[in-house]
């Protein structure tokens, strides 16, 4: 039971540290971290599925849904409150995922990956062609308000950062509890051998559908934050290369540690920003090489590195 109690403690500690760091960060670094955390949320969703042995190559779908919900709601109804927008993003993603989840739950491996990818590409094609929603140019997103508080400039960046950190920590804590729950453990068992799980009486399809809906909600939340942070959304959010990056973060972090997901996301974002800055023409090249090196050197992801360190500490 001590573990269940330690999760809230760890969450509060993590949030305090993150906010303290945020107060010291320059504006660009704050934006970078906000974006990295937003994308980390999507990757966390993929990790949920990865625990059951599935990889979604189309989480851009929910990232995009979240981003467009925040953009469209602000433009159409004037809602700019970030809590309300997040809630709407969750609802939209949950509805879409509830439709596709049970369907997708019968697919495995590469077929699951390709079907999710095709769903996200359908949304991409749809958004690119719909001029009401801005077509390929996308649309601008109004600055968010926080329960009536309407900051500007640096204060806005900071407020968004704190909001993001809170969401990340709360979601991370909840997911940790889920991972250690019966459902979360069944997911791990599915990864090992799904037929045995069926024989033992658990429903593999339900389990996967649940993980999928959760991944969708996390992706959508990430999208809401990213849309508001950039102030602009476009169909690229749903493009396959965007989804590819999320998968990269998930693989980079492994499926053991939740903190590792966000660390990997920050690492990727930093590598990207710096290679953008120093090798403006070959940043993809440096990113690709970075990716290959990571896969070669860290077969089980950054998470395995963290848990190895932990184990070493415990044994010494």
């Amino acid at each position, binding site marked *: 039971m001590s573990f269940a109690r330690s999760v809230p403690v760890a969450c509060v500690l993590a949030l305090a540290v993150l906010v303290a760091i945020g107060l010291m960060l320059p504006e660009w670094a704050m934006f970078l971290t906000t974006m990295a955390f937003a994308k980390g949320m999507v990757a966390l969703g993929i990790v949920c599925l990865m625990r059951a042995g599935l990889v979604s190559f189309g989480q851009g779908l929910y990232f995009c849904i979240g981003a467009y919900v925040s953009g469209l709601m602000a433009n159409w109804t004037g809602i700019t409150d970030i809590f309300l927008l997040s809630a709407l993003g969750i609802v939209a993603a949950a509805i879409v995922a509830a439709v596709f989840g049970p369907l997708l739950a019968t697919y495995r491996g590469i077929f699951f990956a390709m079907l999710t990818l095709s769903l996200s590409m*359908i949304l991409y094609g749809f958004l690119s062609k719909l001029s009401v929603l801005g077509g390929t140019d996308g649309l601008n997103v109004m600055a968010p308000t926080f329960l009536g508080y309407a900051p500007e400039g640096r204060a806005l960046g900071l407020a968004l950062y704190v909001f993001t950190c809170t969401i990340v920590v709360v979601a991370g804590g909840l997911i940790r509890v889920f991972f250690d729950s019966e459902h979360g453990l069944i997911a791990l068992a599915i990864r090992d051998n799904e037929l045995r799980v069926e024989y033992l009486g658990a429903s593999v399809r339900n389990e996967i559908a649940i993980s999928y809906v959760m991944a969708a909600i996390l992706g959508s939340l990430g999208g809401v934050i990213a849309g508001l942070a950039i102030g602009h959304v476009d169909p690229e959010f749903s493009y396959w290369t965007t989804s590819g990056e999320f998968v990269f973060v998930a693989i980079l972090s492994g499926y053991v540690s939740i903190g590792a997901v966000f660390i990997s996301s920050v690492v990727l974002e930093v590598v990207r920003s710096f290679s953008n800055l120093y090798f403006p023409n070959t940043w993809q090249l440096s990113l690709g090489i970075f*990716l290959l090196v990571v896969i070669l050197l860290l077969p089980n992801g950054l998470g395995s590195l963290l848990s190895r360190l932990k184990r070493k500490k415990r044994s010494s």
Partner: protein
Amino acid sequence: MELLAYILVDGLIYGAWLFIVSVGLTLVFGVLNILNLAHGSLYAIGAYAAASAVGAYFALGGDAFPLGSYVAMIGGAAIVALVLGPLLERGLLRHFYDRDHVIIVLVTYGVFLILEDVMKLIWGVTPLFVSEPYSLLGNVELGPLYYVAYDFLVIAVAILVGLVVWFTLNRTRRGKVVLAVIHDREMSQTMGVNVDRVFMVSFVAGVFLAALGGALTAPMISVSPGIGVNVIIIAFAVVIIGGLGSIEGAAIGAVFVGIARAASVHLLPEAELFIIYLVMAGVLVFRPEGLFQKTQARKI
């Protein structure tokens, strides 16, 4: 009725192109069990190589015999395959064969990122135009419409490629060895098949087919950065529809998608961008393994 004929002809032309572009992908998946995300980049490199080769051909006085530019195009694709194929397979992919499926997909994603920039480094970002081969064969009159004869050349090449691949796999000794490896890698290794070599040759063939697709496309478009990004997803759709690893499936899938797209262009232009994925999602819902995939026994 006329509209139907247009849809059919357009669909066949597009389908033929799709087949050439995607057959390499399905071959590599069938033999090596790798879903190659860099396939689109190899296609783009093939297009660039062909553009350079054709440019060089005419610069060196090829005007006297312009049809030779086709040879130059194919030569460009062959060079790409012979250089990049062994390099990627022996130098990189080989190290990941015992790793998870998804990891290899991600590795090819890394290769895709790298190749995208390598192309910019080699050929720059200004678009290349080599339209000479496209107009060489003149036009064909079909009813009230004119088609560029080159489009029908693409159909011919697609049929030729399909036949050659099918014949090699099913009617030659080496092809049957490849089929054996597809069927059971370990067993064929025990029987004395040099699986490493089968892998490399198949991968090189896959790269050649991708590059050939690009080379054939180069005269029809302006060759510029980013042409490969879309192609890969379309090729995936075709291959998935047909059933991963099935050559016949890729052919059927290509015609299917080609006609669906042509129909959408003529009847509902707004849907053109996502009709392919819609078809793919539709097929997968009813035939999860694609049209031509044999069901496999689950291992406990």
